[in-house]
């Protein structure tokens, strides 16, 4: 990694504790120290309960840290959120049934107060990017799961956010759709040069997509390793057959604390 690159997100001793149903304290995340550079593709990898989603939600200001601090471009998550610099892609495509695909993509632009013309142009551009140009007038229910998730990504990109937060966006999709979307996502990332935080529980996916894999372990949720992925870019699907890819996968797998997961 180039040490001179600007730090986009910095966490110091970040921890989150909250109460479960019985009112007991649960340590969801503890002592996370991480620096994420501008334009970097970061994968947050770990099994269920490791706090990877909690970490993402802290960045998005959806969750308040109980310990330590988190700064984005030197600001608090709330300040960054109010400046509308985030794009967020949920695991489920959170599309609104009563809006057409294009209107769904326009939603954040409406909130930002863009004019009708600007909204329409931006939405067309984003739909073109995700390959949904011909389906602009369709309603979400008419689309397949993969297309719904593309629309979801188009919506997150519409605002041209600095930071794209993705919470297991492809985990509900079949393998073929997923591979297609992996290539699309890498292309979009290359074209737009955003900082991406990508939560996943798939080791292969994290290695294939990211610059660095942040490995989180559960009980309590903590950052147990950061693995540099030095695969060349642009990446293609056949790279996954190369020995180096498999070495990296093995390296990531072995970096989980407490042995096998």
């Amino acid at each position, binding site marked *: 990694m180039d040490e001179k690159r600007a730090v986009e997100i910095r966490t110091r001793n970040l921890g989150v504790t909250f109460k479960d149903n019985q009112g007991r304290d649960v340590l969801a995340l503890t002592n996370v120290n991480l620096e994420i550079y501008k334009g970097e593709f970061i994968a947050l990898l770990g099994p269920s309960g490791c706090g990877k989603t909690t970490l993402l939600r802290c960045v998005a200001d959806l969750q308040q840290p109980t310990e330590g601090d988190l700064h984005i471009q030197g600001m608090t998550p709330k300040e960054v959120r*109010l400046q509308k610099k985030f794009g967020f892609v*949920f695991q489920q495509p959170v599309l*609104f049934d*009563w809006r057409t695909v294009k209107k769904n993509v326009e939603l954040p632009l409406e909130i930002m107060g863009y004019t009708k013309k600007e909204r329409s142009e931006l939405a067309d551009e984003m739909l073109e990017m995700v390959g949904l140009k011909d389906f602009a007038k369709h309603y979400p229910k008419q689309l397949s799961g993969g297309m719904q998730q593309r629309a979801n990504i188009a919506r997150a990109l519409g605002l041209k956010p600095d930071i794209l937060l993705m919470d297991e966006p492809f985990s509900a999709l079949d393998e073929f759709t997923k591979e297609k979307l992996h290539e699309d996502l890498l292309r979009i990332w290359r074209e737009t040069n955003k900082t991406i935080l990508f939560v996943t529980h798939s080791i292969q996916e994290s290695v294939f997509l990211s610059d660095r894999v942040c490995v989180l372990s559960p009980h309590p949720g903590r950052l147990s390793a950061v693995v540099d992925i030095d695969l060349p870019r642009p990446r293609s699907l056949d790279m996954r057959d190369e020995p180096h890819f498999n070495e990296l996968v093995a390296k990531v797998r072995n970096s989980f604390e407490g042995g096998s997961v």
Partner: protein
Amino acid sequence: MVAGSKRTPENVLPHLHQIIQAVFSGKKVSGDMTAIGLVLSSAGLTLFRALLGFVVGAVSGFILALLMKLSGFVEKLLFPYLMLIQLIPVLGLAPIILSVTGDINVSRVVIAGILSFYPVATNTLSGFKAVEKDKYDLMFVYASKPRELYTKVLIPSSLPYFFTGLKIAAPMAVTASILVDTLQGDGGLGCILSQSLKHAMSIYVFWIIVFVSALIGILSSKVIGWIEIGVSPWKRTGKRSRKVRT
């Protein structure tokens, strides 16, 4: 059963063809009105009166649900009463509401209003509550204003539930209107129903009313369904067009 009866068969259950005949018969049953003319004009009157109560009830039901969603205070204050009002046999209170208000039209609006009010209020409220957490999170990440959360997410999401409430409410408002008609003789289906039962006019009028009122009951909720499809284009596309694949 009909054959064994000692009473006139027209009272018990006339043949369907007799009723149909009565529908098309030109015989005047009251003044210069034919049976079907009388029933239809009364039905129009009843429907019009029901509509007023229905609209008042539906609008106030929606507003109450919105207020309950906006303010936890209002919700806590009124929720038990919203439940209670369903358990009170409002239709049975028609005579006393007439006595208290002293005006038949006001009591009709009140009764049809109360009956329409609670299905709309409870259904709309559950519509607001059924909005997924992810949608709130999405609006939060985009730092939307609270007003936008309502106009862009909550109110559109609650629309199908609102219409479900309307579909329940519409036949109830019609029934309420007919019942109130029977209390005082100023026209309407219920009024001529009582008259024809007392043999003040042809008994066939009664049978026509039974069919017409059932039809109005069914149609009233169908019409709401059509309106719903009309205002929600995304529902139209569901079945007809095939799902497209990647």
